[in-house]
C-alpha cells in the first residue's frame, strides 16, 4: 500500500473522483447469458458491458448468480445460452462480432485487434489466449508451494515456450535461463507491490489470510490479463486491509491497463472503487449504473433489504 501511495495514485476517495481512461469502448460484452442447472435457472437472460479501463462491479444478494456469471466468463461453465465476447487491441474489431458468431468460430484476429467468444473456449484458453484472469471466492493458492513458485506457475505458458517444452530447459539453454530470470523479476515486482517480498520463499499456505488474498490477486496479474475477474476479494478482510485492497485495484486498473470485473459484498469497497455497478437478483439484472445511481435505486434497496427507502438512507448502503 505504501508503494501505491508514494506513486501518488488515488488510494482512497469517492468513486466520482476516480477518473476512468478516456477510451470507454467495451472490453467485454455479455449478451443474453443464461445458465440453467437442471430446473434451476442461475442466470437468466443477462446482458451487460464492461468498459476498458473500468472497474465494473457485479453485486447482488447471496444466490443471485454472480459467481455463475464469473464461471461462464472464465470458461469453467458452458452457458446454456448467450454470448460472451472479449476484445483485445484495436476496437474496430467489434464490427466483426456478428460475423464471428455466425461462423461458429472461437476467435478472430484482424488489423491489430482480436475478438474472442469466451463461451466457446475451454477454461485454460480463456486465460492463455483471451487473457482473462480470475481469483476465487475461497482462495485457491498452491498451499504447499512457496509464494514465489505460485507466481511462477502463473507464468507457466510463457516459461513453457521458453523452455522448449522442457527440452531446452533440461539442457540448461541460456534462452531459458533468461526467461526464468525475467519471470522471477516479474514475480518480484508483484511481491514488492503486495508487500510480501520478505516472505517469497515461505509456503503460500503459511501466509496470513490477508496475504493469501493479495497473493492470489498478484498471481492472477502474473498471467498478464486484460480483464481481471475478482470473486469477493475483500471477503474476510478487516477495514484496513479492505482500504489497502482498494488501493491495489486502483493501481492495477490505472497502471496496468487491466480492466477489472469484481464481485463484492463489502459495499464500502464497491462504492469507493467502482466506475460502474451491475446489480443481479435471482439471475437477472435489476439495475445498472454509476455508484451514485445504484445507491439510490429503489429496486436495489428492495432486493438487498426488502424495506422502505427512508430506512436505508441512514443504513448499510451508505458509503462511509
Amino acid at each position: 500500500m505504501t508503494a501505491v501511495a508514494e506513486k501518488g495514485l488515488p488510494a482512497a476517495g469517492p468513486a466520482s473522483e476516480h477518473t476512468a481512461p478516456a477510451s470507454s469502448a467495451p472490453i467485454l460484452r455479455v449478451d443474453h447469458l443464461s445458465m440453467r442447472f437442471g430446473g434451476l435457472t442461475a442466470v437468466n437472460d443477462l446482458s451487460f458491458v464492461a468498459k476498458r479501463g473500468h472497474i465494473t462491479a457485479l453485486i447482488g444478494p447471496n444466490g443471485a448468480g454472480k459467481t455463475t456469471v464469473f464461471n461462464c466468463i472464465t470458461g469453467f461453465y458452458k452457458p446454456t445460452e448467450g454470448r460472451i465476447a472479449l476484445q483485445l487491441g484495436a476496437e474496430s474489431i467489434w464490427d466483426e462480432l456478428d460475423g464471428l458468431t455466425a461462423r461458429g468460430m472461437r476467435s478472430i484476429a484482424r488489423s491489430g485487434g482480436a475478438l474472442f467468444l469466451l463461451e466457446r473456449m475451454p477454461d485454460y484458453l480463456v486465460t492463455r489466449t483471451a487473457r482473462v484472469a480470475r481469483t476465487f471466492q475461497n482462495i485457491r493458492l498452491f498451499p504447499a508451494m512457496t509464494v514465489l513458485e505460485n507466481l511462477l506457475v502463473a507464468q507457466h505458458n510463457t516459461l513453457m515456450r521458453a523452455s522448449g517444452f522442457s527440452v531446452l530447459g533440461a539442457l540448461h539453454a541460456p534462452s531459458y535461463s533468461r526467461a526464468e530470470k525475467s519471470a522471477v523479476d516479474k514475480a518480484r515486482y508483484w511481491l514488492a507491490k503486495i508487500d510480501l517480498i520478505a516472505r517469497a520463499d515461505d509456503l503460500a499456505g503459511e501466509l496470513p489470510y490477508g496475504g493469501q488474498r493479495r497473493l492470489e490477486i498478484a498471481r492472477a496479474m502474473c498471467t498478464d490479463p486484460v480483464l481481471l475477474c475478482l470473486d469477493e476479494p475483500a471477503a474476510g478482510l478487516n477495514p484496513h486491509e479492505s482500504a489497502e485492497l482498494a488501493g491495489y485495484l486502483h493501481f492495477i486498473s490505472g497502471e496496468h491497463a487491466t480492466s477489472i470485473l469484481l464481485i463484492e459484498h463489502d459495499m464500502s469497497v464497491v462504492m469507493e472503487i467502482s466506475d460502474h455497478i451491475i446489480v443481479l437478483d435471482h439471475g437477472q439484472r435489476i439495475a445498472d449504473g454509476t455508484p451514485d445511481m445504484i445507491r439510490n435505486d429503489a429496486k436495489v434497496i428492495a432486493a438487498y433489504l426488502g424495506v422502505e427507502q427512508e430506512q436505508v438512507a441512514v443504513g448499510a448502503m451508505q458509503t462511509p
Partner: protein
Amino acid sequence: MRGEPRRTDARLSEAIRQAAITGLIAFGVLLPLIGFNTVQNIRNELVLETRWGLLASLVAIITAGRFFYALLAVPWLAKAAAQPESESSSAPFFARLRRWLAPISLCLLVLYPPIALGLAGFQGAVKWIDNFGVQILIYVMLGWGLNIVVGLAGLLDLGYVAFYAVGAYSYALLATNFGLSFWILLPIAGALAALWGILLGFPVLRLRGDYLAIVTLAFGEIIRLVLINWVPVTNGYAGITSIPRPTFFGIPFNATDQGFAARFGLEFSPIYRTIFLYYLILALALVTAAVTVRLRRLPLGRAWEALREDEIACRSLGINTTNTKLTAFAMGGMFAGFAGSFFASRQGFISPESFTFMESAVIVAIVVLGGMGSLIGVAIAAILMIGGTEVMRELDFLKIVFGSDFDPTQYRMLLFGLAMVLIMIFKPRGLITTRKPSVVLHGHPEPRWLERKVRPQAGTPLAQERSG
C-alpha cells in the same frame, strides 16, 4: 519435594487402570480367536480345543506392554514434546548431513559391488549384489518413476505395475521374435510404456483421488489378464522363456571364447554379469532421478506440483491440465517401461505372475512411506521394504526358535502393514517431508525449517528493501 512421589503414585495408578482396560479388551478379542480352536480328530469330527495357556500368556504380554507404555513411554514422550528447542541444537548437523547425503550415498552405491566382492568373495557376493543391490535398485527406480505420477502430479496410480509389464513384455517379445538388442529395445520399451501411460491417461482425465485410484487399479488388472489370456502372443501363464540377456555392448556374458571373461582375460564367473546388471540398473535409476530433479525445476514440474495442489487454480492460470496430466502419466510410464525391460533381460523369463496387484501396492507403499515427492525418502523406503524382505530370508535362526516350518517371509505383508500403521501415526506425510523449493528469491541454501529461524527481522537490509 512432596509432590514428586505423589505424581509417581498417580502415574502408577493411571498405568494400572490403562493396563486393566487393555487387558480386558485383549481378553475379549482373543478369547474367540485364540482361546478356542477347532481341530479334526481321527474320525473326521470337529473337536473344540481350548488353549487357555496361550490365551493367558498373550493377554499378559499385552497388559504388561500397555502398563510399561503408560508408565514409562508416555512421560518420556511428553517430556520430549515439551522440549522442542532441543531439536535446534542438532539442526546444523542434520543440515550438513542433508547436504552430503546424496554424494556420499552415490559413492557407496558405485563402490558397493567391489566392497561386496571383497567382503564375501566371488561366490558369496552374487547374493549380495543381485538380491540386495539389483533387486532394491529396481524398486528404487520404480518408486522414483511412480513418484512423478503420485508424488509430484498427485495422481494416485494403483496400476503402475501395468507399465512395468508393458516394458517387460515389449522387450521379451521383440527380443525373442526379432532378435533386437537390449540397447535398441530399451528406448522402444520405454516409448511403448509411455504410450500406454497416455492411453490410460485419456479416460481418467476427469477423475481424481479415489476414483482415479480405482480406474488405474482396474487398468493394471486388465493388462495382467490380457497377458494371461492372449496365449498366442504372450504364452499365457507359462510366460516367455529364454529372453536374451544383456550383453556388454555386444560381448555376451558366457563361458565361450567370445564371452566377456575370455575377452578381458578373466576367469569365467557369473558375477561379471551380475555386476554389469547392477551398474546398468544404477545408471537407469540415476537417469530417472536426474530427470525428475531437473523437471521439477522446469515449468512442467512446477505445473505437476501445482496440479497436485489445486487443479481448478491451474486451469484459471491458463495451464492445459489435460496435457500436464498426460505428460505425468507418460513420463512415469516410460521409466516403468525402462525398468520392465531391464527386469525381463535380468530374469531371462517373465510371466504374468510377476505383475500382480501386489507389486503395484508395494511400489505405492514405497512412495507413500518415503514421503511423496522426496527422492531420498523413496530410496530409503525401497531399501527398508525390499531389503527388509530379503533380510527376512536370511533369518534362519528364527527357525530354531519357532520350529523348522517357520518361514519369516510369510510375515512380510504383516510387517508392511505394521510399518504403514506406524508411519501413519508418527510420520503421516512419509519419512521425508521437507520439500525443497524449485526456485528461491532470497537464496538460502538451508532447508526450509532452518530458513525460518534465520529469517531477517525488521531493520535488516532485506526488510529495508521491502519498504523501499
